[in-house]
């Protein structure tokens, strides 16, 4: 795999400032991987055959009999997880990421953070293909928040079917979300923003929520993290780019009997 030269990454810089942890935190440059993964191919994934077979205490040794309620789909280098962890110490947060190296980085990062701090017991990461195996991880209505932050835009029309938001996949997201749960989406690609908005709007089980409404409900810290905690989010800020946020609430519908 070709190595990518990067200027000092933010995490490494942050780590350098914390003299104590300097050599403990992993560096992104050791975990780079090309940004795309084909979600339809048979990766050599390890995944549970059903949510019942997961022992979450492996991921959260400090918690007993508790399941995650926030899931970051395509968590990348884990910026959102690390930001939210201290703010929601009683909520279990899981990141799903398909790229091996990147998952490994997040895992090493969490291990290091747990060793140097009392926080971060409530975050973990799993290598997974969320498009195929989300219901293998989460029980029906078990999540209260799903995050899709700066997903792969798949620009070509031919590749649109690989987008993480699609009419058919939304049924699975609605299944794992509890009624009232929130889907957070954000992107710096206008086309994709329209795409996600259109498909979520069209789905009977999701209802658009204004940002202010969520802030009124006390979800401001989450929204702030959604905007600016991830590597992509920071990159967009550096390039003075625009970000499109769209949040939706999982609603319940009555059955239409024909």
């Amino acid at each position: 795999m070709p190595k990518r030269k990067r200027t000092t990454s933010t995490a490494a810089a942050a780590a350098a400032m914390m003299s104590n942890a300097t050599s403990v935190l992993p560096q992104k440059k050791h975990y780079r991987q090309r940004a795309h993964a084909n979600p339809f191919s048979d990766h050599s994934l390890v995944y549970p055959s059903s949510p019942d077979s997961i022992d979450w205490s492996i991921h959260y040794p400090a918690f007993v009999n508790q399941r995650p309620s926030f899931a970051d789909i395509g968590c990348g280098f884990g910026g959102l997880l690390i930001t939210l962890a201290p703010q929601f110490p009683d909520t279990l947060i899981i990141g799903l990421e398909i790229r091996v190296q990147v998952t490994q980085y997040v895992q090493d990062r969490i291990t290091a953070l747990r060793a140097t701090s009392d926080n971060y017991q409530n975050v973990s990461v799993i290598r997974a293909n969320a498009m195929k195996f989300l219901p293998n991880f989460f029980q029906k209505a078990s999540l209260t928040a799903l995050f899709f932050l700066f997903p792969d835009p798949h620009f070509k029309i031919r590749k649109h079917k690989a987008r993480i938001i699609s009419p058919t996949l939304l049924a699975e997201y609605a299944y794992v979300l509890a009624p009232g749960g929130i889907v957070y989406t954000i992107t710096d690609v206008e086309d994709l923003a329209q795409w996600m908005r259109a498909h979520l709007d069209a789905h009977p089980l999701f209802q658009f929520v204004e940002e202010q409404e969520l802030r009124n409900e006390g979800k401001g810290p989450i929204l702030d993290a959604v905007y600016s905690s991830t590597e992509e989010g920071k990159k967009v800020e550096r390039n003075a780019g625009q970000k499109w946020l769209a949040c939706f609430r999982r609603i319940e519908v009555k059955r239409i009997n024909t």
Partner: protein
Amino acid sequence: MSRYPYTRLFLQSEHSIVIAGPHIQVLDTNTGDVLHSTGKCEEDQIAPGPIRCAALSDCGKYLATSGDDKKLKTWQVDDLKLLSSRVLPKKPTYINFANHKDILVADKFGDIFRYQLHPSSNESSSGCERDALSSHENPSGGELILGHASLLTTFLLTADGQYIVTADRDEHIRVSWYPQGYTIESYCLGHQKYVSALHIPSFSSRTLISGGGDSVLKLWDWMSGKLLRNIDVFSAVEPFIAVKAPKKKREWKNEDEDIEPFEGKRGRRKNKGKRKEKRSGNDGDAEESQNSAIPEGQPGEVSTEESEVVFVVHRIASILSPVPRIVFSVVGATAIFWFPMNDDSEACIQHEPFYKPIIDFTLEDNGSIWVLLDADRSSQGGWSSKGESDDSNLVEVRRWTLDNFTASDPPPLALALNSCTLPATQADLKVLDLYLDLLALPKHFEAEDRTQDLSEMGVDDVATADSGSNDGGITKRELGRLKHKQALRRLQEEVGRGASLDFEPLPTDSKRVKSGGRGDTLALGMDGA
């Protein structure tokens, strides 16, 4: 002259329908007279390739068919008139009627579209053009009911028509509302391999039976997704699996016959000589052990081809008379299997041998079973028949007694089906390729993934850093990771609470094969090599 085997049979009181390669025949059920046949039709009526999926409407008046040409065709059974032909977005995998007048088509991309039996004018008008927001090609304006991100193998509607149960190649069984497929009621999860057959018995409408690549059939309470029990079938079936999948090796691709490659290649070649996979356990079949010495480096030689037992449940059905039983067939197996449907006893799998690979079967309410056979298979190679039955029959009929079968005098329809066969060329039969599933359903892992996993081995621990699996030494980035790991370890030791913080209970030997249902398979983002 070669002939087409029958791939599907619909029995009705008046008109019965049989599918053979690209052809449809309608026969008088009582006399066996061929009433209509596409074999006599003009060329343009016949599909260019074999019919892969077919379904009969509940009223028995309409037939829907499709194949690799991605055309959904509807036929009037009475006169075998082609009513409509519509282009499908993807290759179909399964077709069935729903609520009398809707046709549901499952495809390789994992979606289910609904079409009206009779195309309405606005259906065709939606056309092929895709705007920036459309997620699916939809050339014939079907209604997207639901979709899996995986090849959808089969589906069924519950008896009340309120739920649709769908199965895919990635072990999922999903229960959704119908037609509001966006609401998922439950998942029946627990299969370790592809799911290829589903059935809900009429006498136990809350129970779903599923089968596929696993050695068991699973019984579910489909409404809740709860697994009721497993029924071990593999040991009973394995001795009868006569058709095996050639082992998929990329370098063989070129020398394959000129079949259109279908996710790689395969062919009707296993009977030219084969070797059983060593790991497949008790391979006691005497016929199989002949070519044990395999010359290396001659992938072009068909006779050296390796093959492996691939288990694919083809169809599960149930019959009430004389007693409730579950009946199933397995791709490439030479027997029909059944067991009684009752809760208490350990299910005993019984079988009825037919000595030729069974393509499909149809049950009659009166307790008869019609079995479609790949009867000409043995004539093509070393596969010798040891049957006492008539070798050339494409169709066999048996009737159940309480405990077993009787082979009574074949009804006129069966006699007709065995005598009026449709001619086919060798090339036709190659294209027909009855055993596609053996190669298409099992997973094939990408080489790219493997190398990634390998490169990861070294960074995991100091002890494994020099593991031989690496391509000679540690790379720079591995070294970089190692440095941080060691620093972390030192820190943990200083603090004196080391072990409790190390949350990597890596099952070093848990590989890409999921070992069933245990928490330890869930290593944090870790894959073995």
